[in-house]
């Protein structure tokens, strides 16, 4: 059985004055209907560029260099842009971090959702508006008929994110890509939005690719977790497996660097150094100069993502 979304050896580079920055460097994963994959990493690790690559929305000087993005069995990378436009929204839709900058300030939110509906469906203005109101209700906006007439600035950050989600699900996508959907929101609102995404997934059987830097969000929402570092997935397993038995030294170090909740106040163990510059990556394993288990061999070859335990892969010769 093939997966709903299967990404194979995806490579996306930014061609800069200083050289080629391999933002996504051979990423593979698959996602089935109704499942949540958490894609985790720090800034610059390539998680957002991975999302944009799936949608074929990588901005120049970035370009998808190689790989496959199979949606429902069909590779999206070679198809014509016009055809891709029908996939965006109805096949794969995306929710971004900043709801304010993604909405048009001069149109009402109902108008913008209705517009999205009409882009994909031959319905009248009246029907599209009715659909917009219905969608606003579905994402938990109270009194949707009135709120549909509001402009983005008249809504709170949490409400705007709900509008963005309503717009994203307006054409009933089968995969929803959410890139840091709650990072700009307060903690109580964050919880509501995450609950909403989980509920929509269950109700509609959508697959959710949840991109985040927050291990707490992943622990709460994901079925599976992929950890990214410097353009590559370095570990991938079920959420329980990765929290119980992290194998890659980077994953282990990430866990040790976050404060726990309600527990002992142990000293945090930061990861020494910084995320490497993509134009000046070390040879071999890109994590090796921050790694406590480094040996000479780590400099020799790029460690492949290998099966280390059932349904658990890691890219480390020491794991």
């Amino acid at each position: 059985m093939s997966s709903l979304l299967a990404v194979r050896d995806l490579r996306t580079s930014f061609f800069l004055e200083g050289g080629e920055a391999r933002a996504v460097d051979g990423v593979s994963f698959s996602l089935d209907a109704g499942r949540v994959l958490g894609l985790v990493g720090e800034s610059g690790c390539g998680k957002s560029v991975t999302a944009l690559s799936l949608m074929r929305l990588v901005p120049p000087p970035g370009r998808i260099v190689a790989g496959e993005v199979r949606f429902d069995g069909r590779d999206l990378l070679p198809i014509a842009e016009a055809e891709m436009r029908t996939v965006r929204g109805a096949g794969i839709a995306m929710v971004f971090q900043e709801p304010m900058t993604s909405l048009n300030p001069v149109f009402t939110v109902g108008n913008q959702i209705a517009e999205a509906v009409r882009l994909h469906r031959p319905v009248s203005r009246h029907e599209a508006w009715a659909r917009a109101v219905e969608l606003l209700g579905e994402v938990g906006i109270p009194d949707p008929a009135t709120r549909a007439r509001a402009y983005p600035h008249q809504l709170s950050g949490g409400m705007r994110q709900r509008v963005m989600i309503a717009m994203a699900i307006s054409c009933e996508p089968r995969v929803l890509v959410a890139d840091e959907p709650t990072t700009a929101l307060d903690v109580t609102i964050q919880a509501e939005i995450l609950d909403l995404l989980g509920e929509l997934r269950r109700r509609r059987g959508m697959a959710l690719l949840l991109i985040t830097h927050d291990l707490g969000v992943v622990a709460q929402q994901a079925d599976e977790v992929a950890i990214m570092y410097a353009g590559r997935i370095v570990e991938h397993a079920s959420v329980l497996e990765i929290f119980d038995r992290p194998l890659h030294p980077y994953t282990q170090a990430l866990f040790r660097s976050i404060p726990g909740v309600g527990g002992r106040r142990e000293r945090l163990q930061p990861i020494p150094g910084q995320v490497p510059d993509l134009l000046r990556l070390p040879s071999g394993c890109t994590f090796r100069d921050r790694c406590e288990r480094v040996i000479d061999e780590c400099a020799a070859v790029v460690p492949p993502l290998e099966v280390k335990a059932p349904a658990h892969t890691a890219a480390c010769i020491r794991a």
Partner: protein
Amino acid sequence: MSDDGAPLVEVRDLHKHFPVGGGLFGRPRAWVRAVDGVSLAIRPGETLGLVGESGSGKSTLGRLMLRLIEPTSGEVRFAGRSLLDLPAGELRALRREMQIVFQDPYGSLNPRMRVGSIVGEGLAIHGIGTRAERRDRVVELLELVGLPPEAARRHPHEFSGGQRQRIGIARALAVRPRFVVADEAVSALDVSIQAQILNLLQDLQQKLGLTLLFIAHDLRIIEHLSDRVAVMYQGKIVELATRDDIYRKPQHPYTRALLSAIPVPNPRQRRRKAGEE
């Protein structure tokens, strides 16, 4: 930290109201009560965590405590003296004792200045030491926050976010303050770098005996760093208690709501959704 002793910083019935609307010359249409009757005291050597959501007034409260902005009414005392009716000269002298570290490690450092001048600016303004002494002190400060001496000759853009936050901390510590307000000082940083800065703040506090007001929206970080925690909501402190009491026995419904919303980094402790009890 002693439990009796006099507080280093104390505010009483503090209010700050901002006007809304009304245009340039018109009367304001309404007032926002950003800080609405806050009283609290911070003991010497203590870390008080101030937590709240955006718009709760926590940053305004931090700035009022340093008299960076003027309160509408109320009292701010530092080491027993009222900050609000000090003559200008004495206020300036007291300013040395209290400093602030900002959230944005990109926007809070002047891009045209070299790091040495940024860190040493406070010393120069307060006329502390000779030029050579100031230069030595800058190197000492850079070392204290974990940066090499050569950093002094470089510009802020040559540093990463975590390194810039170290520069901001060195600048705040230059004049040997007793009280430091850290306003979302690690919020913009990646988790692995966040841990470096949190540890640095803890070490510096122990080494220098600093009193710290740590303002943040992240309850996990507040728990990690604070001795006591104040929870702010709509301009008011709704709960103030020791860290353990806040996190184990929260009393106020808002504190409970905040705590139950934290995404716990443990998939075996998934938060129950409303109605799923």
